[in-house]
């Protein structure tokens, strides 16, 4: 049993420590892999997993040994091979996940359920303010439950879990030391995470740093693409009887380069310095009444500062955000066919300040929301989830202008309603089919409304549209899956209709004062449709074949012409051999040509690259070592990512030796 505990401990990337590793009764056998694991820590605040959650868990989550093996420089690079995922980038640092062709504000990125509150969704040169190396699990939230976090349920919430405010009391002090190195950018990272019990308190501390140089490619070095990151946090929670309450503080600092010298970039590149300070409070009270299970309350304050330096040292752009958010959730008990449900309210206030050589007005915004989610199990074959969310949004620009060249710059108020419904039906013993329907809304961002000036790092002249209506989408998804002990097959097809898709487009015009290309934001009807499929097959106990494929087709409804920045058809396949504590495998990533292009967009050739991965777990006394060694792009193939802004001057990274070592004690 000790051996099983050890395996569980390592496969969960150390999460098991805080899950009372000595409690072997919590171990469960994974029917797909045949190995024992502990349950994943629930950080999404939802204790009960629904049928739809389980599908998402099987297809879209990354944790334990898989996360360890795929750990990369950024969040987007770490999850880019998950089903439906792609990565938009402008050099290694400013990369962001794209899901089913949806990007920007349609994909929310959160840490322990709290939005990252950075500017990564607003411009391609902005990076995600999140350190991945200390993350324990990455989950993708979709379906009706997503409305408890965001009104944009056509997209997804990508949640990085580390339990910064501890939710459980460990039985002893646990230390996790990690180090990471890769050859393609001479990169090195290290981290230290400590979890400790003190009386009825659970303490967690974390510190990490990351330094990478310029990225090497088969065609040369991508200049000005290094990253320096320093991150630390401390969390404390009081866990007693019916109450869990805690506080945490995090500071994240990163300096990174944006390469220059191509269309859509500053000629000489730009350096960006980003700093984020965040404090979080959390309270969970188990009411234990007849109807109400518990009440959860969260409060968060974020201060974010972002400076873009030109080569001369001048500040080209500066952004500051002070964001307050609060959520109160009421989780109710099982009542008849209703198995679980949540009612909640949320508040968000953002003060967005802008400086440097940016002409957009600073603005304040307020969001108030109320939502309800219910999970209904009709019978042993059919379960249904329903949700609805109402949002009130108010945006107040500081500099009102009734004669602006872009329109009437004044206060905006939006009232929006999002809704979701899903059903999963068991056709046969291991065969399920389901449907997911969404009515999704999204309020335009301050930049989409009021931008009016140059953005030097992106080397564009950005024009907002103060008359934008909220983005609306109606979507439907049909899926079916089969799951047995050695086989998992899933096929999904989706169709999203956007009557008003908000998008910045290259107008083909030049701003004659700055000689920059003009990008104007508009709301246009658009369609995004596609399919995904996933296969996990285990012909022998020691051998596993994994495959996922995804395709997205996007078009403007009125003209029938392609939407910009749509990822091409992609297949990820891997074959892995596992014996005892050793794992070895080969992985292939292939993508087709992307010839469906918006005006002024460049085509991208197809490619196929191979990699090797291995992982070994070793115990020496009380120390547990977890070593992953990988070679990415083993043949040093020159290939380009269609969603990369630097593809016109440099391909993607060349051959990369990547080693990750973790020590637990």
């Amino acid at each position: 049993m000790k051996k099983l505990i050890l395996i569980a401990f390592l496969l969960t990337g150390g999460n098991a420590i805080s899950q009372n590793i000595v409690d072997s009764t919590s171990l469960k056998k994974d029917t797909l892999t045949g190995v024992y694991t502990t349950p994943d820590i629930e950080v999404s605040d939802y204790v009960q997993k629904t049928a739809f959650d389980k599908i998402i868990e099987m297809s879209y989550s990354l944790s334990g040994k898989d996360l360890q093996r795929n750990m990369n420089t950024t969040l987007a690079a770490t999850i880019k091979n998950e089903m439906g995922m792609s990565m938009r980038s402008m050099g290694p640092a400013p990369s962001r996940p794209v899901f089913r062709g949806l990007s920007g504000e349609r994909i929310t990125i959160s840490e322990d359920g709290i939005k990252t509150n950075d500017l990564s969704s607003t411009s391609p040169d902005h990076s995600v303010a999140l350190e991945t190396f200390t993350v324990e699990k990455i989950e993708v939230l979709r379906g009706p439950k997503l409305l408890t976090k965001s009104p944009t349920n056509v997209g997804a919430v990508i949640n990085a879990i580390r339990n910064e405010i501890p939710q459980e009391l460990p039985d002893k002090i646990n230390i996790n030391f990690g180090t990471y190195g890769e050859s393609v950018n001479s990169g090195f990272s290290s981290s230290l995470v400590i979890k400790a019990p003190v009386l009825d308190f659970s303490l967690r501390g974390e510190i990490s740093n990351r330094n990478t140089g310029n990225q090497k490619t088969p065609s040369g070095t991508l200049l000005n693409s290094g990253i320096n990151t320093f991150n630390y946090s401390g969390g404390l929670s009081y866990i007693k009887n019916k109450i869990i309450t805690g506080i945490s503080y995090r500071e994240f600092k990163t300096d990174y380069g944006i390469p220059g010298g191509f269309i859509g970039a500053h000629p000489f590149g730009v350096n960006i310095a980003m700093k984020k300070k965040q404090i979080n409070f959390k309270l969970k009270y188990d009411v234990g009444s007849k109807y109400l299970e518990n009440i959860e309350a969260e409060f968060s304050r974020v201060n974010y500062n972002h400076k873009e330096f030109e080569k001369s040292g001048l500040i080209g752009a500066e952004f500051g955000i002070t964001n307050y958010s609060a959520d109160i959730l009421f989780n109710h008990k099982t009542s008849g066919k209703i198995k679980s449900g949540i009612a909640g309210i949320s508040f968000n206030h953002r003060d967005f300040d802008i400086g440097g050589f940016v002409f957009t007005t600073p603005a304040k915004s307020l969001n108030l929301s109320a939502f309800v989610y219910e999970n209904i199990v009709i019978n042993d074959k059919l379960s249904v989830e329903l949700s609805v969310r109402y949002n009130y949004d108010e945006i107040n620009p500081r500099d009102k202008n009734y004669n602006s060249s872009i329109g009437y710059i004044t206060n905006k108020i939006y009232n929006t309603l999002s809704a979701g419904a899903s059903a999963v039906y068991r056709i046969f013993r291991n065969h399920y089919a389901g449907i997911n329907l969404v009515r999704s809304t999204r309020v335009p961002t301050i930049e989409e409304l009021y931008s009016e000036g140059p953005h030097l790092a992106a080397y564009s002249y950005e024009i907002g549209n103060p008359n934008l209506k909220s983005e609306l989408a109606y979507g439907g998804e049909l899926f079916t899956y089969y799951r047995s002990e050695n086989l998992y097959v899933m096929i999904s097809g989706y169709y999203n209709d956007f009557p008003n898709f908000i998008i910045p487009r290259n107008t083909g015009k030049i701003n004659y004062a700055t000689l920059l290309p003009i990008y104007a934001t508009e709301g246009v009807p658009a369609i995004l449709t596609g399919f995904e499929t996933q296969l996990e097959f285990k012909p022998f106990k020691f051998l596993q074949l994994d495959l996922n494929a995804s395709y997205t087709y996007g078009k403007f409804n009125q003209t029938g012409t392609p939407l910009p920045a749509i990822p091409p058809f992609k297949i990820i396949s891997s074959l892995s051999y596992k014996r005892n504590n050793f794992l070895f495998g080969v992985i292939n990533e292939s993508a087709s040509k992307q010839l469906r292009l918006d005006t002024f967009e460049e085509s991208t050739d197809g490619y196929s690259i191979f990699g090797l991965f291995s992982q070994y777990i070793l115990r020496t006394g009380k120390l547990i070592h977890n070593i992953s060694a990988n070679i990415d792009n083993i043949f040093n193939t020159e290939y380009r990512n269609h969603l990369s802004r630097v593809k016109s001057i440099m391909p993607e990274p060349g051959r990369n030796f990547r080693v990750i070592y973790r020590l637990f004690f």
Partner: protein
Amino acid sequence: MDKNLKNLLGIIIYVAISSLFVVFYSCADDPVTTQESEHLEAEGLVLKDTTNNIILKYFKGALTPGKDTINVPNMMNTSVLSVIFLDSNQVELPPEEDPDHTLGFDTYGSTKFSVTKVTGQQWKIFMSGLTPGNDSVKFQVLHEGHADFTTIAIPVRIFNIVQ
């Protein structure tokens, strides 16, 4: 330890550490430096000599034929040239008096000619020929270090005066 005392101790530790977090956090947020002065909204420029003749006209990224090259006599200076900016309707803008706005020029390291600002005159220059030949210059309006306005590379011809 007595259970109540243990709970009390726990609460004291929680409050103390939480307060520490808040104090630590409440150190001043990084302020954003906002530009207060207006940006120049020019889309073109003309160069005029002392007789008020237009010798160069640039508008919306293009040069007007016949007024598309600055002719500079070799080993001599041009007359004093006034730099006047045009708005989107080609109307001349009044000279910018805000000291945050300055005239900038980029000669691309040329050794064939030089550009000099007239002392005490923010928007007046003269050019000097150093070696006969063809070259180019870019004019800018610098505002707190950035170019509010920039031209394309404008041809410069340095010519020998025939005696």
